[in-house]
């Protein structure tokens, strides 16, 4: 008999990091190693309360622990935000298909991210940076509502920008006194000169509205739908393509995604909702 896919691996929250007014990162140590690929997701169970899908924000190279950044948005995430260090949790997964990093080799990787969408992107970014010579360049265009809303500030505002091979620009919708950088939604810092479009893979992750307009912008620049990778946020539950909650057209986001090319899903009208 195959193993029970509904049985979580027990784990513990060992550290909680306040990232922004609405986002906290949780370091979770599972009792059994969980090997995942960047962009795959797990179901995090709060015993007795429920579970919700999250893409780890840490590098897959660390299978001892994973970091999960969570925005307070609903019942489960609200409860998770109340958790203290030492809280017991359950983890199921990993599920689905992540970013096809090997397909990016020799190309420029153009990453457009917004808000808590930087969580999966952080995992991808760390993976790319770990073998940066394999890629022509990693070009990042990240946005947040305000400077405070950026997550991973310590890395983002300093060390990440200095990595050779990385080109990074940040923007905020609304600045405060200290902010000297760009102001405007993320699409305002995208330019067709950012990358050589013919030899690039674009990755978009963020709130639905941002993903929609960023994708349209990339298409306008001449990106082929097959070269735009989207990390879709749907109501994934079982993780094994059965319960139906996460369906986009014929696709189960949990099994066929969560990373899709725009080519795969572009004909379904409900992808941005």
């Amino acid at each position, binding site marked *: 008999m195959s193993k029970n896919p509904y049985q979580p691996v027990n784990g513990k929250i060992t550290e909680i990091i306040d990232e922004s007014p609405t986002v906290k990162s949780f370091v979770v140590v599972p009792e059994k190693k969980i090997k995942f690929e960047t962009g795959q997701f797990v179901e995090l169970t709060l015993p007795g309360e*429920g579970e919700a899908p999250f893409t780890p924000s840490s590098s897959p190279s660390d299978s001892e622990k994973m970091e999960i950044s969570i925005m307070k948005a609903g019942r489960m995430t609200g409860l998770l935000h109340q958790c203290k260090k030492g809280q017991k949790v359950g983890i199921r997964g990993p599920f689905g298909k992540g970013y096809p990093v090997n397909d990016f080799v020799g190309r420029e990787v153009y990453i457009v991210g917004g808000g808590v969408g930087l969580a999966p992107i952080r995992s991808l970014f760390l993976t790319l940076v770990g073998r940066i010579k394999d890629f022509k360049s990693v070009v990042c265009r990240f946005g947040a509502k305000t400077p405070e809303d950026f997550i991973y500030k310590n890395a983002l505002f300093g060390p990440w920008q200095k990595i050779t091979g990385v080109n990074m620009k940040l923007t905020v919708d609304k600045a405060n006194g200290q902010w000297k950088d760009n102001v405007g939604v993320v699409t305002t810092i995208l330019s067709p000169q950012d990358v050589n479009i013919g030899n690039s893979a674009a990755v978009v992750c963020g709130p639905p509205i941002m993903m929609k307009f960023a994708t349209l912008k990339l298409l306008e620049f001449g990106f082929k739908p097959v070269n735009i990778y989207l990390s879709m946020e749907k109501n994934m539950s079982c993780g094994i393509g059965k319960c139906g909650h996460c369906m986009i057209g014929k696709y189960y986001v949990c099994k066929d995604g969560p990373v899709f090319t725009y080519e795969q899903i572009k004909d379904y009208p*409900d992808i941005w909702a």
Partner: protein
Amino acid sequence: MEPVYISNLKPFLDAVAERMSLYVPKKTGQHYTYSKYDPDSKSPAELNNIRTCTTVKEFLFPVCELAAIFPEPAEPEEIKPFAVFGLKECDLRSIEILDKVFTEEEFEDPLYIKRRENMFIIASDCFEPGESCFCNFFNGKAFAQNGFDINVSKIRDGFIIEAGSEKGEDFIEKHSRLFNKVPDRLLGERDKNRDKTQKQLEENNAKYKLDVPIKELTESGWESDVFDVEAKNCVECQACTRICPTCHCFYLYDTKQKDYFAKMKMWDGCLRQAYAAVAGGANPRKILGDRIKHRLMHKLVYFVDRYGLDMCVGCGRCIDTCAGEIDMRSILKKLNEELKDKNRPKAKVIK
């Protein structure tokens, strides 16, 4: 193995019930539902003329079941062999569909599989198709074609019993004293009955005859307002998804018990408004018409793309149960007419 004959069902059912739990159809009002066979009951089981009201999926995928216990995983619940009597061809096709989903390689659902492996399927011929039956839309037949352990066909003076699997053959061999050779004239009678039922099924559905294959027809409905029009009659009770033998959406939820936590697996339905909503509030199918459309697209287009067969068996239970009198056949017929209109050559304008 040649079919065998028995004049009375009771000894046969008693023999099954001696070996395992047996569930049989029982008339409840106008419909049949399943209950456990009681050999001592004054009114032993009767053979249902038509599919039961409740579906076979309840035996394989219960309304609510325990999916996991933690922190300490528990031994899975033991499932003993059980038999279900009176399943019709549409029920067998629905099992085939659920098998595709729950036994898919790399994505097996062990909860389903352990029940499936222990189920002994006793099918039977249909001889009174209902007004709502439309299995012929999906090449369904009035009798079981495959996927059964034993099939029972009622004839004038008794029953023809036929094995459809090794398990079935084994059962008949072990109980050979119960059965006789089928008199020649009776096999012919079985075929005649089957033809008659099939003909009636086709007559019942003649007015819904479609000109285009169902998948193509459904796909043509992307832009149609048929689903929004149907939505006006839908009261969102979700009876259709519950009574459907192939609908298999479910919902995982966690509960606190005295000394453990449990993850439960419970039926859900894609017509429910918050079904696909995420925590941020986004919901890809806020509008009821879109949910009705998604359900039909899943059944008649997406499932076909993925698994190579329709996710509808034409049992018509959804039609019987719908408080708003929504009828899948009429939806398809409307799409059929819309498509015909679209494809009709436009009259030439003479200048």
